[in-house]
């Protein structure tokens, strides 16, 4: 699927939801727990089951990224499944806080 910044994506195996922060222009195959993720607007209750080998889980508010692919997703609802982009598991990106200005 072609991803746009601001787009929300949902897992089809659990309650995981992410918001796209950065994405490449090309199509990306996004999976959670081994099953495809869909646009959150089209998500129904999870129907598939997660691959037991792909259950790294996600944490609320963390950013999951792959620099080579140029993708960054922010977790808005956590779940058990591992999130992968084009077969590569996305890792938590370390926070680089700016001085609080507001």
């Amino acid at each position: 699927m072609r991803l746009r910044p601001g787009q929300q994506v949902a897992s089809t195996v659990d309650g995981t939801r992410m918001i796209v922060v950065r994405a490449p222009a090309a199509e990306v195959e996004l999976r959670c727990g081994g099953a495809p993720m869909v646009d959150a607007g089209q998500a129904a209750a999870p129907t598939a089951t997660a691959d037991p080998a792909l259950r790294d889980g996600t944490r609320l508010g963390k950013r999951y990224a792959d620099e080579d692919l140029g993708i960054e997703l922010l977790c808005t609802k956590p779940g058990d499944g591992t999130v992968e982009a084009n077969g590569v598991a996305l890792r938590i990106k370390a926070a680089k806080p700016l001085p609080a200005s507001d």
Partner: protein
Amino acid sequence: MNVTILLDMAADGFGDRIVAGSRDGGLTASRLRALATGAARRIRESGAEAVVHLAANGPAFPVAMFAAAFAGVPLVPVNYRLGDEQLGRLLAGHPNAFGIAEEDRHDALKGAGLPARTPEEFVRDAGEAADHGEEEDVRSEPDATAVLIYTSGTTSEPKGVLLRHHNLVSYVLGTVEFASAGEDEAALMSVPPYHIAAVSNVLTNLYAGRRCVTLPSFTPHAWLELVRKEGVTNAMVVPTMLARIMDAPDLDRSVPGLRSLAYGGARMPPRVIERALREWPHVDFVNAYGLTETSSTIAVLGPDDHRAALASGDPRVRARIGSAGRPVPAVELEIRDEGGRPLPPGERGRIWVRGEQVAGEYAGHGSPVDERGFLDTRDQGRLDDEGYLFVEGRVDDTIIRGAENIAPAEIEDVLLRHPGVADAAVVGVPDEEWGQRVEAVVVPASGGDLDPEELRGYVRERLRGSKTPDRIACWPELPRTATGKVVKRDIVTGLTSAPVVPRG
């Protein structure tokens, strides 16, 4: 992408944490969400197309902001001190709005055909709706307007800037880490709710998990007392507030719990920030430069920058204390000449900015961004060789004397360095020979006596003759907006209409 996502995440991630008000009796993130969805039901029932918040800072403000979002309508925070006529003109643009205001402005709202309730009534009704399980969650598209803010209009009539959900959310996600604030932290926002900083402040603090307290009416004493009493760790002020805190006599200025102080909205006199740095060495100072149109901050001068500038022997580094710092990662800046060509570092020009957080539209006026997506800030400035941005005043305030363009900021900086000067503003006044001539108004430091001729000589020693003000008047204070911006057209009026008093 909708601002309600930020509140959903807060309620999910730290629902029991107090996010607004005092440690005892404040609102938790969960309760804030419940109040917002309850209030959203009331807003939808009323059929309103916008929520007008015409009051000072308080708990009703964040409830109103999220309630509007859950109801799928924009929030319109309005200056509660506007005169009836100006307010009437502004409200005419929002004929079907849900009004929230203190009693003393209810007549103005009713005059515009808007039913009104007080902030207290609004929060109470929201609580009743929430407690009865009534809620609304009709979220708009990312392109929908989340907040409509009227610009301060110091150099032109106020325009309504449309901040869409995606502008605000991308600003928050780009600058804040979720739940990064400790439970012991607390933020004090003293800027009024109709200013962009107050809007983004609600969102960034909530997302970070930082409790927000409010001070409806600023005085140096009240500010210091509240900071100590509520254990405020992060505060935001406009420069005139910091000047007043530093200049007020006989005050206990100790703030041992304060960790960071952010300021913005107008230029900070170097004398004031240097004094604050010396008086509160444990505090991290942050200068945030931004516009309503940029959803808040686009350049930051951080704590390390402040300390390095204060300690440095290198004049170029020292000068940075008067800068706006460096652009935030998510934006690009360009300095362009009047022909629109980008200029190299060191050259003065107009500041343009591009980024996801930059609003692309004014209500009823079309887009302020060019074909490359850059917004004209209408501020004059330059970048130094390491990318520090120096903002030198509004382009509209540039004085054109003969064939020369003169930036008032350059002359103001020199005047503000004089030990007898507490405040200063330089303007162009109509002149038959030159088009405009340079004049200045200064406010003497307390107890001081200023000799305008001596002051003119002081300026002439440091700048070219053409930049020396022809006349310097002494006033007890400068006309400023509630957010601390100098109203230069009022200064020009004051200088050109008052009779010239002959000096004896």
